[in-house]
């Protein structure tokens, strides 16, 4: 069976929803971060799949995916810094306990 654009898009959609589920159900702050990484990867797969199927020979999708990778790395660095600070202040990374700003 020929693999078409739909196949890749559905895989990316599945990955996106799994990342969303992870973000919604994990109490560990780093766990939420892992969900974010899944979501970003799903978006990047979409870019590259469109690149290959709708514009053969074009690299715009690949460049966008490149920027996604770079920015995801940057965001993960800062987020891990935040989690470490959370751990230093609360002795836990359980986000359910980070309620001091809750009004």
């Amino acid at each position: 069976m020929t693999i078409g654009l739909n196949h890749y898009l559905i895989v990316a959609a599945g990955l996106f929803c799994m990342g969303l589920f992870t973000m919604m159900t994990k109490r560990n702050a780093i766990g939420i971060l892992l969900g974010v990484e899944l979501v970003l990867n799903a978006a990047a797969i979409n870019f590259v799949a469109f690149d290959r199927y709708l514009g053969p020979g074009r690299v715009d999708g690949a460049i966008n995916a490149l920027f996604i990778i770079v920015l995801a790395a940057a965001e993960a660095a800062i987020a891990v810094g935040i989690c470490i600070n959370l751990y230093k202040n609360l002795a836990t990374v359980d986000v359910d306990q980070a309620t001091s700003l809750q009004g």
Partner: protein
Amino acid sequence: MGLIGSAASGDVTMPVDERTGVMNAAASGGWLEAVLFYTVAGMTLVSGLGVCVSRNIVRMAVWLFVALGSVSMMYFLLAANFLGAIQLIVYAGGTLVLLIFGVMLTSKSPWARFDVGKIELLAAAVVSGVLLGCLGAVITATRWHGVEGMVPGSSVADIGRRLLTEYLVPFEVAGVVLMVVMVGAAHLARQEK
């Protein structure tokens, strides 16, 4: 040649990129391409499921590593070789190691678990399921006019040229962002004296 090479295609002639003279092509509908795609897609979805369902944070990170590796393989299948290699270097070998460091610096014991209530799990599952359903419906209902079969893949020279001409501003801004992030992360994670 692309990583899949002529093994995945039915015929022997391959498109040559005129500018760079390099053969790089996405596979055309051979049986090998289908086998590889389903294997890689299966790995991606199973490892994504592993990330969702694991309750131990270290195991979640390992499943994420498998997911990132599978996504890299998917890039190779889509003939974006450079991107696949960069995904391995930056994401799997860099970002993931950073996340694992974060996990290890913030976990109290290897078996610590944070559990969520059943209602939250159900609600999240419903929301994700509905979103997946909607996305799937939209994707299959749209007529994409996609080009299947043998197509030339992306070449590194092209990416490099575009990064320095069309995408120069985002490229420079990304550089500045990375520098800011480096300083910021070093400051955030500093030792308090």
